[in-house]
């Protein structure tokens, strides 16, 4: 009885706004892992910052309930002695303790995880970096906690690409290709341009990005190195080129070329720039996306009279595209889940609204996952547990996300319109 009332208060608190990230957890897992996280020892400012980063990362997954730190103060740990039965009475599954040591040139974060039920320490870890990297240290810690408890790799230390348009800005910085941490913080400009930028895509090693830029007056695909800023157009052809997707081994890009006036899919071998045509159809073929194993591509085609999703097996000689979406008159921009157990895509429902949908291979129906009017550009996290996508609110584009366990969140709108998110691979 006591336990229950505690939990309901905590769930209410966890739906409030934390820091700059607007967390709107409408529905989390019905049986979340309950964690007590003691504020880390060390400098109070660093400790508080870390605590917020880690608890926001974990809450956003929808799989965790974090005991609010204000309610922890009477429960000091004396002499490293963990009183497991007290934590068990509070309904906690895990206890996290740690410390942060900041010196002039380095920061060390140490953390331990205790399993309350099994009454033992299950993890003892250290993450280190330089003072500027405190956020990253927090994300690495969150991922360590997530992995120890769920057995699945965490994605707090991954990053996002997206396009930002500021209509009121100076022309030269109207369109921006942005890079940020998975929580929307630590934003950097990769490319600022007076002309539209669309379709950002990560290389599998997350060191490079490909995107479409209209800087020459027509759509062209560029590859840019994140660290050096070096960039090049992938093909010197005069034609419009768009919709890049990197093969999982990083050796190929699939692209859409318009060289005979119509959108067709090609595969470009990067080391010698040899092009292979993959589709030959009077209708539109575009939005190709590789399977995680690299043996198939998904794409959108209008060949049936409306946009639908097709799959092409690249291991076959003269492969035939197989239609894999049948519900409704608009299914597009599909990508595979990381284990290829299903696909995520944009679906237009009968009322004309666009939603993000999921179809598992084993099921013969689709699951509509979002509820706004014009949801677009879904991108799946590398662990397959979260999806980020673009929404429109009051005519303004912004990013939203959800975890497959049911949590929903919105990223803080930076200035202007934010759209077309792309989730990186694992970075740690």
């Amino acid at each position, binding site marked *: 009885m006591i336990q229950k009332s505690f939990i309901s208060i905590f769930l209410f608190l966890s739906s409030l706004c934390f820091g700059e990230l607007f967390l709107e957890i409408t529905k989390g897992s019905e049986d979340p892992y309950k964690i007590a996280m003691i504020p880390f020892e060390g400098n109070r400012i660093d400790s508080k910052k870390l605590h917020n980063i880690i608890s926001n990362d974990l809450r956003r997954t929808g799989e965790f309930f974090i005991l609010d730190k204000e309610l922890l103060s009477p429960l000091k740990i004396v002499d490293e002695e963990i009183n497991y039965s007290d934590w068990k009475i509070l309904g906690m599954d895990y206890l996290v303790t740690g410390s942060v040591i900041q010196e002039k040139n380095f920061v060390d974060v140490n953390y331990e995880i205790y399993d309350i039920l099994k009454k*033992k*320490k*299950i*993890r*003892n*870890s*250290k*993450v*280190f970096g*330089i003072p*500027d*990297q405190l956020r*990253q*240290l927090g994300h*690495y810690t969150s991922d360590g906690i997530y992995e*120890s408890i769920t057995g699945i790799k965490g994605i707090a*230390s991954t990053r996002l690409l997206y396009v930002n348009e500021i209509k009121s800005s100076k*022309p*030269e*910085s109207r369109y921006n290709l942005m890079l940020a941490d998975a929580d929307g913080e630590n934003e*950097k400009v990769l*490319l600022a341009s*007076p*002309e*539209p930028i*669309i*379709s950002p895509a990560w290389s599998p090693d997350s060191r490079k990005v490909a995107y479409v*830029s*209209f*800087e020459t*007056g*027509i*759509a062209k695909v560029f590859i*840019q*190195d*994140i660290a050096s*800023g070096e*960039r090049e157009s992938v093909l010197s052809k005069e034609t*419009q080129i*768009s919709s890049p997707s990197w093969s999982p081994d990083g050796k190929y890009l699939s692209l*859409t070329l318009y060289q005979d*006036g119509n959108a067709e899919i090609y595969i470009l071998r990067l080391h010698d720039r040899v092009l292979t045509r993959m589709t030959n159809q009077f209708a*539109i073929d*575009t*939005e190709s996306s590789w399977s995680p194993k690299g043996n198939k591509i998904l794409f*959108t085609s*209008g060949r049936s009279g*409306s*946009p639908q999703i097709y799959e092409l097996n690249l291991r076959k000689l003269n492969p035939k595209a197989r239609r894999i979406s049948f519900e409704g008159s608009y299914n*597009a921009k599909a990508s595979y889940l990381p284990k290829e157990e299903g696909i995520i895509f*944009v679906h*237009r429902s009968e009322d004309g609204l*666009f939603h993000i949908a999921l179809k598992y291979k084993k099921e013969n129906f689709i699951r509509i996952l979002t509820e706004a*009017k*014009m949801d*677009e550009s879904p991108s799946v996290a590398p662990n397959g547990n979260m999806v980020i996508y673009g929404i*429109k609110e009051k*005519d303004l584009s912004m990013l939203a996300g959800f975890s497959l366990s049911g949590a929903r969140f919105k990223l803080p709108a930076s200035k202007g319109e934010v759209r077309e998110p792309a989730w990186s691979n694992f*970075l*740690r």
Partner: protein
Amino acid sequence: MMNKFNNTFFSLAVLVLFSACSSLQVTEESVADQSVSGVSLTPKSMSSQAVLANAVVYFAYDEFNLTSRSIQALKGVVELMKKNPNITITLEGHADERGTREYNLALGQRRSESVANYLMANGIKRNSIITKSYGEERPLSLGSNDTSWSKNRRVEIK
């Protein structure tokens, strides 16, 4: 033309140790390098080419076929081009914001090709026509409503 700005962090090697011990996981790792160099493109001093044929034709939702009203507008373009056989025109296809961006880019291209096909069927040479698409990236009218959308589904003839 580009210029670069750097945010260089230290590069540290990642070191992860997993203890062989039965259930206690012990790790030590450093966070990865996060150097980023941004690039700024400067606007090209567009040699603002004189607009030769200033016409716009509009399309129905999801469609790229010409309407009878569009054909009326295109008759004037055909006449103008026949009188000036040396000019080259650009057909710039656009879509409204509904649907995915890449599909809309392809749809905008289909619209400009529809116009090109009409012009060619009326005696205009292919090599005096350039087709391209901006998809939904360059709306004429902002706003998510039928009026804006119908203005944005267009081919601009320049």
